[in-house]
């Protein structure tokens, strides 16, 4: 846990090399063709979503079961702004992040008053409330049919209708969230979140207003999920109520646990593992979720630190760095 949990201990040169390798790797993805590029973009979008959830689960110790709300609200904001108001997807993207943060602040304000299972139930209930709203408010959301007709914006003259452009935009968002979370976790604010996860009572006795920082974490995680949701809307140009369903919150939890809670990069592996399973296995059998379930159970039983934790334990080079 500590290897990825304390990125500041990594020597600057190795750190720079890792970033350069990552950026170069991502830059090359569109060469692999449209199918793989699309899948890779999806993995990165859900990696952002899972990383943002891990800020709550893995770093603040808040098991939220309603994280789809923030992803979904942002995606809806982008598409609704575009379809109903004719606003550019970029304006929608920025607005979506703000709306997600606002909704997270409101839901968080009520939810953090309780903890444990009641917290989990409350966050899920709020998310389901938004899900119902998206189904019933057909005039705005298109209900279960979803809302189509969104025109993707362009960037420096390059239309996001192009798969490669889409991917690069998503990759920039992903790199930003990865960079930000690594900085955050090593920072004073991040250390407060970790302290709350470790020992809430002692944090209060040490003079920290714990409730306030839980809300800060919840709102931040909501805004980051909003980045994922906005990118989802920009690349899919379509949104339907599935995106607010509790099942998506559940998927995100599976991704976090598969990859490794309390690590920054872990949820990225979790997202990749989950979506690869979904895409590869579902082309062979419609019971793909059964296989995800079995692998999840095995992971919880034998890879307690997730895929990333398992890798870290087996690659001494990574552990040392």
């Amino acid at each position: 846990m500590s290897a990825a949990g304390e990125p500041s201990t990594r020597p600057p040169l190795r750190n720079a090399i890792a970033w350069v390798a990552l950026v170069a790797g991502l830059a090359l993805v569109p060469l692999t063709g449209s199918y793989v590029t699309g899948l890779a973009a999806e993995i990165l979008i859900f990696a952002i979503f899972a990383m943002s959830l891990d800020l709550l689960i893995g770093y603040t110790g808040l098991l939220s079961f309603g994280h789809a709300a923030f992803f979904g609200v942002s995606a809806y904001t982008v598409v609704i702004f575009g379809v109903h108001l004719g606003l550019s997807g970029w304006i929608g993207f920025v607005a979506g992040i703000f709306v997600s943060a606002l909704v997270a602040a409101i839901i968080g304000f009520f939810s953090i008053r309780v903890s444990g299972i009641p917290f989990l139930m409350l966050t899920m209930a709020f998310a389901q409330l938004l899900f119902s709203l998206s189904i019933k408010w057909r005039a705005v959301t298109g209900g279960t049919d979803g809302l189509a007709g969104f025109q993707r914006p362009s960037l420096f003259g390059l239309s996001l209708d192009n798969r490669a452009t889409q991917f690069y935009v998503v990759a920039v968002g992903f790199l930003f969230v990865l960079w930000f979370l690594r900085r955050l976790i090593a920072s004073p604010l991040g250390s407060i979140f970790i302290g709350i996860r470790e020992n809430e009572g002692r944090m209060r006795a040490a003079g920290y207003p714990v409730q306030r920082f839980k809300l800060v974490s919840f709102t931040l995680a909501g805004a980051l999920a909003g980045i994922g949701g906005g990118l989802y809307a920009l690349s899919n140009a379509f949104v339907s109520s599935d995106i607010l369903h509790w099942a998506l919150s559940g998927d995100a939890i599976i991704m976090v646990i598969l990859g490794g809670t309390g690590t920054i990069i872990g949820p990225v592996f979790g997202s990749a593992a989950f979506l690869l399973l979904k895409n590869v296995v579902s082309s062979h059998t419609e019971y793909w979720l059964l296989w995800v379930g079995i692998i999840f159970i095995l992971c919880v039983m034998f890879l307690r630190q997730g895929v990333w934790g398992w890798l870290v334990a087996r690659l001494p080079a990574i552990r040392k760095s």
Partner: protein
Amino acid sequence: MSLLRTDALHKAFGSLVVTKNVSLVVNEGERHALIGPNGAGKTSLVHQLAGQLQPTSGRIFLRDKDVTDTLPEERCQLGIGRTFQKNNLFRALSVRENVRLALQSKRGHWYECLRATSSNRKLMAEADDVLAQVRLTDGLDRAVSTLSYGEQRQLEIAIALASQPAVLLLDEPTSGMSPAETDSMIDLVRSLPAKLGILMIEHDMKVVFSLAHTITVLYYGEVLASGTPDAIRDNAKVRDVYLGLGH
């Protein structure tokens, strides 16, 4: 000057009264021991002083400011520090980080989110200073869970000291310690800043009589006696209900 003062403090859980009309004073520089048999309400009293428990009636004053209705985190910021009877640490974090986190609580920078904590060398050095005060100087990068029990008791005090309290509440600092560890804990408490007011719950009479200026005896939530160590030693009531058991 009185640092911490309670005025007719009273706490009841239904019909069970754990604190009954307790008025006591801890002055600047005073080492005040709180003794009494198990179930006398010592820890409940400390919980009320530190804000973890709300008294049913009565007031608590810190330097004549009424703090009865403040939260634990506010009391810490105002200057009431405490340790816990059972080690209450950040177990997965390093020894230094435990103290750095507690120091940071008083220093602000709470919302700094892009700069690494490790780049604040001054705070790291201060953490090492506080740890040296409780005689922890080696292996500060180790996880707390690898420390011995006695070292964890020392760290418990370091975390409380890090918030620079005016008055420190020690809840059985030597509980579970070997005689040798107890002796070094006595030295440690003796070496704490002279101006600090200390209220200490303790069962070990050796610790009590070698440190305390004042002793208050609690019995079923009530103050049975309060005075100098000599006065308490000679108090017939105290001998009867408490000291007689151990001596």
